[in-house]
C-alpha cells in the first residue's frame, strides 16, 4: 500500500528505540540487509530517529549520565550510546539521529543544562562509534539472511559482498541531536556546544512537541539553528530534521518557515484512528493576494458542524455520509478516493472493519504528501510567503504571529522543487507495514543571512 500513495512517498522514518527488542539489533544483524528490506519499505530513504512520534518513549524513568530509559512495546530498556549505535548500524538507515537526553518542554533550567551536556557528550561517542560501524566488517553470521528464492540468494550474496566492502553505517548521514527544552537561551547554548564537526551531515531538533506553545516553536527552532554558529555556506548544506512538530498542517507550515526540512508526523495516524479524512485545501486560488478572501483554490470541503467536519478534516462516522456515493474528497486521486465512496467508508467504520483505517490512512497520507508537494512548489517558485499567508488566512486567528517585516530570510530559495527534497514518512512503531505520512522538503540554497530571522512573537493564537 506504501507504493499506492500519490504523490509518491519521499522517505520513511522509524524510531531506533522500537528496535531494542523483537526484533533487536542481533536479529537484524543476522538478517543482514537492514530495516528497509526487513520491513519491505521500498527504495525510499530511511531515517532512523531517536523518538517515535506516535508514542513518547521517554520519561517513565530518569535518564542517567550513561543512558536513557525508553518504554516500548516490550517494556523498559536502558539505552546508552553503544547499544544505540549498535542498533542504528543493524538498521542500516540512510540517516540517523544521535542519542539525545530527551526532555519535555516543562523542564527546568538545571535539567535542561544536564540534557545539553549529556547530549553533546553522547554525540561525540556516537560519532566515534559511527566510524567504527562504517569500517569493513568481519564476515558475520549472514548465512541466515534472505534464503528462499534464487533472487533472494543473489541479493544476499550481494549484501554480503557489500558488507565486506564497507561497514553497515558507511554512507549513512548523522544528524546531531539538539536539545534545550523550551528556553531559547538554553537551546542556543546547547547548539553552540555541538556546533559543526566532521561526521555531521545535519541536525535533529529534539524536544519539540512535548507541550510547548506552538507559537513558541519558531523561536526555539531559530535559537537552535542560529546557536550553531555556522557560516551560511555550511548551513546551506546541512539537513534539518524535527520530530513532534506536526500536530496539523499549520504547524508543519510554520516549521518549514522556520527552516526545517524533514519532519515525521503522528498527525495522519491520529486523524485516521478518529475516522477522519483530511480535506484542507492545498493551493490558493490563482492570483490570490494577501488581503483577498481565502477562497480555496484547491480541493477543500469546508467546515460543516452538522457533519462533524471542520475545515481541515471530515468525520466519516457522521450519518450524513450513509448514502454519499462520492469519493472522500472530490478531486483527490488517491487510492481510496479513486475506488471507494464515503458511504462505504462510513459503513466500514460502523462495522468495525479494518479496511476503514486502511482506506483512510491511504487518503490521509496522500493528502499530506500532496500538501508537502504544494509547499515545495511554492518554495521553488519563490512564493512561499504568499502561500503561507494564504494558508494562515484560512484560520480565524493564526497559530503563530508573523513578526512584522520578516521576509523569508531562510534557507528557502530557488532550486528545482524537490531536487534534494526529501520528506519524512512516519513508520508505525517499528512495524513499518503501516502507511506513512509525509512532510516538507526542499533543503535548498541559503539566502543572505542566517537560518531564520524570526523574532519570538508573543503567544497570541487561537486554535480553530
Amino acid at each position, binding site marked *: 500500500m506504501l507504493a499506492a500513495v500519490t504523490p509518491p512517498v519521499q522517505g520513511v522514518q522509524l524510531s531506533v528505540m522500537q528496535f531494542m527488542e523483537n526484533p533487536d539489533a542481533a536479529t537484524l544483524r543476522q538478517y543482514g540487509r537492514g530495516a528497509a528490506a*526487513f520491513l519491505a519499505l521500498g527504495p525510499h530513504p530511511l531515517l532512523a530517529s531517536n523518538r517515535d512520534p506516535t508514542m513518547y518513549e521517554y520519561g517513565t524513568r530518569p535518564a542517567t549520565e550513561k543512558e536513557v530509559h525508553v518504554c516500548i512495546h516490550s517494556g523498559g530498556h536502558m539505552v546508552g550510546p553503544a547499544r544505540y549505535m549498535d542498533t542504528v548500524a543493524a538498521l542500516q538507515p540512510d540517516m540517523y539521529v544521535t542519542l539525545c537526553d530527551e526532555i519535555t518542554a516543562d523542564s527546568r533550567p538545571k535539567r535542561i543544562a544536564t540534557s545539553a551536556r549529556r547530549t553533546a557528550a553522547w554525540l561525540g561517542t556516537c560519532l566515534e562509534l559511527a566510524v567504527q560501524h562504517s569500517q569493513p566488517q568481519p564476515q558475520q553470521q549472514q548465512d541466515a539472511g534472505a534464503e528462499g528464492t534464487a533472487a533472494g540468494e543473489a541479493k544476499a550474496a550481494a549484501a554480503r559482498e557489500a558488507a565486506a566492502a564497507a561497514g553497515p553505517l558507511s554512507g549513512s548521514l548523522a544528524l546531531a541531536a539538539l536539545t534545550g527544552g523550551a528556553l531559547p537561551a538554553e537551546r542556543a547554548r546547547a547548539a553552540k556546544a555541538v556546533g559543526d564537526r566532521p561526521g555531521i551531515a545535519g541536525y535533529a531538533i529534539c524536544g519539540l512537541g512535548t507541550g510547548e506553545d506552538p507559537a513558541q516553536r519558531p523561536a526555539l527552532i531559530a535559537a537552535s539553528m542560529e546557536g550553531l554558529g555556522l557560516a551560511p555556506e555550511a548551513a546551506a548544506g546541512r539537513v534539518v530534521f524535527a520530530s513532534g512538530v506536526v500536530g496539523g498542517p499549520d504547524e508543519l507550515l510554520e516549521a518549514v518557515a522556520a527552516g526545517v526540512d524533514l519532519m515525521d508526523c503522528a498527525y495522519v495516524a491520529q486523524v485516521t484512528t478518529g475516522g477522519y479524512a483530511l480535506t484542507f485545501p492545498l493551493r490558493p486560488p490563482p492570483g490570490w493576494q494577501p488581503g483577498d478572501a481565502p477562497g480555496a483554490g484547491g480541493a477543500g470541503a469546508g467546515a460543516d458542524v452538522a457533519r462533524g467536519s471542520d475545515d481541515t478534516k471530515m468525520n466519516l462516522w457522521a450519518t450524513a455520509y450513509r*448514502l454519499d456515493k462520492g469519493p472522500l474528497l472530490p478531486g483527490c486521486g488517491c487510492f481510496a478516493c479513486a475506488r471507494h465512496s464515503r458511504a462505504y467508508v462510513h459503513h466500514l467504520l460502523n462495522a468495525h*472493519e479494518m479496511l476503514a483505517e*486502511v482506506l483512510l490512512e491511504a487518503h490521509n497520507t496522500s493528502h499530506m504528501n500532496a500538501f508537502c508537494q504544494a509547499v515545495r512548489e511554492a518554495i521553488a517558485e519563490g512564493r512561499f510567503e504568499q502561500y503561507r499567508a494564504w494558508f494562515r488566512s484560512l484560520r480565524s486567528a493564526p497559530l503563530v504571529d508573523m513578526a512584522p517585516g520578516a521576509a523569508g530570510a531562510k534557507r528557502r530559495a530557488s532550486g528545482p522543487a524537490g531536487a534534494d527534497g526529501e520528506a519524512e514518512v512516519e513508520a508505525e*512503531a517499528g*512495524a513499518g507495514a503501516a502507511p506513512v505520512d509525509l512532510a516538507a522538503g526542499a533543503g535548498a540554497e541559503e539566502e543572505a543571512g542566517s537560518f531564520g530571522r524570526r523574532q519570538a512573537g508573543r503567544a497570541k493564537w487561537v486554535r480553530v
Partner: protein
Amino acid sequence: MASTSASALPSSDSPALKFKVVATQGRARSSRMTLPHYTAATPMFMPVGTQGSVKGLTTAQLTELDCHVILGNTYHLENRPGSELVAEMGGLHGFINWQRGMLTDSGGFQMVSLLHLAEITERGVTFQSPIDGSAMLLTPEQSIAIQNRLGADIIMALDDVVPTTTNDPARFEEATHRTTRWIDRCISAHSRPTEQNLFAIVQGGLDTRLRQISIQQLMERDLPGYAIGGLAGGESKDDFWRVVAQCTHPQTGLPAGKPRYVMGIGYPLDIVVCSALGADMFDSVYPTRTARFGVALVPEGVLKLKNAAHAKDFRPLDATCDCMVCKNYTRAYLHNVVTRGIASAAILVTYHNIAYTQALTRRMRAAIEEHRFPDWVRDYLRTMFPAGDVPGWVRDAMAEAGVDLAGVATEQPAAGAGAAADTAAPKSARAEKRAAGRARGPVGATET
C-alpha cells in the same frame, strides 16, 4: 475412469449461469462457471467478506490474488448497513467496488452460529441482533428479498440448519423436510431469476436416508446449482467426508452438470479431499480468521508465527508461493508484528493465506486438466505428511475417490512417530500427540 471427449463432459445452461466441466479425472472435475459478473474456474475457494469487506484487504488486492467469487452475508449486511441502502449504492458490487463474482449466504448459518439468539419456527428464524438486541425475523421470503437487493450472482436458499452435534434425530428429520418446503418459498419469492442464481442446500445431518431424500427433493426443483450444507459444525471427519461423497456420487448424487458447493470448508486438506470426491466450490472464514491469530498456511501444514522459533527465521512463509508477502517479508518480521498485535500484520498474513488457497485451487485445476491429478494429490499429501501418517479419514475418502495412496500413506506410522499404540506400550493420548508432534518437526500440522 477419466472421460475426456468434449461431448461427454457434463454441463448445464441456466438463465443466469452456465456451467461447463472442461476436464475430469476420476471424480474430480475442472470446470468453468459463467456468472453475470464473471466466469469463475472451479474447484474454487471463495474468501468471506461478511460485512462487505474481506477483513483488511482492498478489492484491488482481492483481484491481485485472483479471487473469482467472494461472499457477503445476508444477516450481517441487513443489520448494517441494510440491504435497501446497498441496493441504492448499486448492489453489493457497486457498494464495495468488486467487479467479479459475488455470493451471499442466506443467513442460515447464523442459525447455528447465533443459535443462542435465534428462534426457529416453520415461518422462519427470529434473531436477536448481537449489536443492539433488536429482533429480526428472517423468513425464506425475507432472506430472498434481501439477497435480491444485495444483487449477488449466486444467492443461497434459506435452509433449516441443525448443528451436526445435535443429538435429536427428529429435529434432523424436521429440518430436512422444512428445507424442501422453504426452497419452494424461496423460489416463489425470487424476483430476479435471470440475474441471480438461487442455489438450494442439501440438509439431513449425518443420516444417509435423510440426505438422499433432500438430494432428490431439491433436484426436482431444477436449480442452477446445489450446496451441501449442515457440515463443518463439529462432526467427525469420517462422517463429514461420507456425506460429501454421498452428495457428489456420480450416479446417485447431485447432478454432475451443475456446480456443487460444500459450505464452510476451508482447511486446505478438506478442500483437496472434497475436490477429489467431485465438489466444485468452497467457502470458509478459516484462511482469513486463522491469519488474524498469526497462523500462516503452508504446504507442510501451518506456521504458528507467534512461536518464538520464527523470531530468527529469515525465510519467506512459503518458498513455493510467489505472493507479495512471500516476496517481500520474512517469517521473522511477521513474527515480530504478529506478536505485537499490529493490525497490518493480520493483513499481511491474510493476504498470504488467500494467495495460498488460490494457488492450491489453481494447481488442482491444472492437475485435473493435465490428467495428473492423482500424482498431484500424492505429492500434496507427501508434503503434508512426510512420515506417511495420512489420517485414516483421508485414506478412506481417497479410496472412495479412486486416488491410490500407495507409497504416501503407510499402514503403520513411520518408526519414531509413535502415534499408534499398537507396537509400543500403551501411551496416554497426550503422550501420543507429543510424539506425533515431535516426529513432524517444528511446523505444526493442520488440525483436523
